[in-house]
């Protein structure tokens, strides 16, 4: 153990638990101050295992630091502070508490050195995030949170099974690269595959990606800001550590990228558009992890960092609109720039950043993933990522601001949101631009030294052409994108519609089969009883009373027969 021997995640976790006992000023200090204390603490975490303990026969590593975990820890604490600031003016206390526990648990995962610690914090994240959803206080949010929890508990079971198999096969609990074990065969491979499946579920990978756009948009305006950051990016972190270079991840990532775009294009609810866009962006990161080179892994880590900021910014902007108007559907919104210019400007900055416009944070991070594909001569992947970049501008970069702040005038004239929300938005908008203008700030804290220059004339011109002409495509095809009051079916249809139908059918089948068997058995039993009654009932032969003379006669006949048999 060294100097500062305390898991940094626990600061926020305990802070969340004691928060309700303070008055509003105390809460403000805790919500804004503790993330900064955590930030200070995690930069004091040395490389390698630093806090260990014994659990049964295992040496668990509660804290293990390296450059990657400090990078993720940094952005998680920044997010906790800004999310807290955004939430303070509107969120219920239970949401503030749950958000802190959730953020603390995800920092716990980031610094976990072994699979047992990782699993415990992983499950705490599921509990914290469910409570964040729940605290929206609506019936739809409650139902969505129960579906969300079911899926994440399932993921937890899969992960636990994987860890058990892994530990049984290797006898080791430390968490490191498992890429090689996937093709090893036997129990070890089974463990690695199950662990990978558990991680991917939290990343929003197919086929169970629908939990994300199903649940997150039901949260409160500030709840979704918090939710967007931690679960999926913790999954990105563990995938980088455990499964870098797994080729399958390239294809899963590309699927997620295009799934996000296409579903967001079909969507009418502004926060569901942004939820699909989370899957899309995590898809870029997962692809980078699958490529698995130093460049692409740096790119995925950097993209997670910048993504948390601009996605939170976009959701703050959408959350401010929802908070002020109570409306989420694009078909109900429009023209809000007239009275919410600051919210619109911040939303547009987020939209430009997510689209990787030059001078924004997305440009300096996403292009590293593409460069990774280029270096490995993955032609198809490179072109798919380029098309996807254009598609991001299409579905999030223009579609979100256009339908909310511009297009037809909805007649709504909401004011700007409260001060806390405005400040949080402005801080994150500024960060999007600062990181884009001065990429060195982020590059120097990435896990590996960066040998990449994002701002070359060629790169900027090519990217601008790609994006601007995708913008042209948006306006040219606007008639095809008329908003409709619809939702789009996804794989969650299987457990929301097909599952209940099958369960009901199975239930009624079991019920009727049970009735048939029961009736058959009862009638058999009844017939047997009648049989018995015929011989032994009150009126049957066996039940008649005999006279003594008859008895003696029978005994004489029996003895006579016996004599005859004896001498015959």
């Amino acid at each position, binding site marked *: 153990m060294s100097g500062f021997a305390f898991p940094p995640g626990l600061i926020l976790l305990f802070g969340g638990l004691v928060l309700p006992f303070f008055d509003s000023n105390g809460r403000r200090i805790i919500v804004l101050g503790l993330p900064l204390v955590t930030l200070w603490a995690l930069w004091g975490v040395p490389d390698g295992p630093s806090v260990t303990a014994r659990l049964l026969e295992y040496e668990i590593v509660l804290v293990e630091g390296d450059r990657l975990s400090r990078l993720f820890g940094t952005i998680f604490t920044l997010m906790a502070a800004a999310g807290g600031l955004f939430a303070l003016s509107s969120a219920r206390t239970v949401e503030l508490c749950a958000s802190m526990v959730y953020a603390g648990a995800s920092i716990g995962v980031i610094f976990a050195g072994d699979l047992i610690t990782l699993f415990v914090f992983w499950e705490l994240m599921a509990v914290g995030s469910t409570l964040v959803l729940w605290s929206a206080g609506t019936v739809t949010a409650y139902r969505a949170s*129960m579906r969300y929890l079911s899926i994440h508990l399932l993921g937890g079971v899969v992960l636990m099974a994987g860890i058990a198999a892994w530990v049984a096969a290797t006898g080791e609990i430390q968490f490191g690269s498992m890429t090689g074990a996937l093709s090893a065969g036997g129990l070890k491979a089974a463990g690695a595959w199950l662990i990978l499946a558990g991680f991917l579920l939290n990343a929003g990978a197919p086929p169970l990606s629908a939990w994300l756009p199903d649940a997150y948009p039901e949260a409160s305006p500030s709840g979704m800001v918090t939710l967007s950051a931690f679960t999926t990016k913790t999954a990105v972190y563990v995938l980088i550590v455990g499964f870098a270079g797994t080729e399958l991840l390239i294809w899963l990532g590309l699927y997620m990228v295009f799934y996000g775009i296409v579903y967001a294009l079909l969507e009418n609810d502004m926060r569901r558009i942004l939820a699909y866009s989370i899957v899309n962006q995590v898809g870029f990161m997962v692809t980078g992890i699958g490529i698995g080179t130093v460049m692409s892994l740096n790119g995925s880590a950097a993209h997670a960092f910048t993504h948390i900021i601009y996605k939170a910014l976009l959701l703050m902007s959408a959350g401010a609109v929802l908070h002020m108007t109570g409306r989420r559907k694009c078909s109900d919104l429009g023209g809000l720039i007239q009275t919410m210019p600051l919210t619109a400007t911040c939303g547009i900055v987020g939209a430009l950043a997510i689209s990787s416009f030059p001078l924004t944070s997305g440009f300096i991070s996403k292009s590293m993933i593409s460069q990774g594909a280029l270096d490995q001569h993955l032609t198809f992947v490179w072109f798919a990522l380029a098309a996807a970049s254009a598609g991001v501008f299409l579905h999030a970069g223009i579609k979100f601001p256009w339908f909310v702040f511009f297009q037809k005038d909805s007649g709504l004239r909401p004011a700007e949101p409260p001060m806390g929300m405005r400040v949080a938005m402005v801080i994150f908008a500024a960060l999007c631009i600062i990181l884009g203008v001065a990429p060195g700030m982020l590059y120097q804290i990435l896990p590996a030294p960066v040998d990449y220059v994002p701002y070359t004339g060629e790169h900027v011109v090519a990217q601008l052409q790609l994006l601007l002409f995708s913008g042209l495509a948006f306006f040219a095809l606007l008639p095809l994108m008329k908003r409709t009051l619809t939702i789009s079916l996804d794989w969650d249809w299987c457990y929301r519609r097909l599952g209940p139908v099958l369960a009901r059918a199975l239930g009624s089948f079991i019920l009727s089969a049970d009735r048939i068997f029961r009736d058959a058995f009862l009638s058999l039993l009844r017939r047997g009883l009648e049989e018995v009654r015929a011989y032994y009932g009150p009126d049957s032969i066996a039940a008649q009373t005999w006279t003594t003379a008859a008895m003696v006669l029978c005994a004489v006949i029996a003895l006579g027969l016996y004599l005859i048999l004896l001498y015959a």
Partner: protein
Amino acid sequence: MNDHRHWLYRPENIRRLWRWGFGILAASVLAQLVFEVYGHFGFDDWFGFNAVYGFLTCTAMVLFAKLLGVLVKRDDSYYQDNSEESGGGP
């Protein structure tokens, strides 16, 4: 005439914005004359490749989404009119 609409919603400004938009599009392609853009794989070497690629792939994605929409779009009360969703509140 005194127009009380926000400047973005006045027809003459909308026309002006379109003109500016096309100007920027043209500029982004012409910038290639100054900053040479090399393709990475040979076949993407020609002038304005990225502009065409961006436009065509986006068109393809929108059309694909439109087609998929025929299959998967449902009324937005789809999951609400069902007894599956009838559970207790919090």
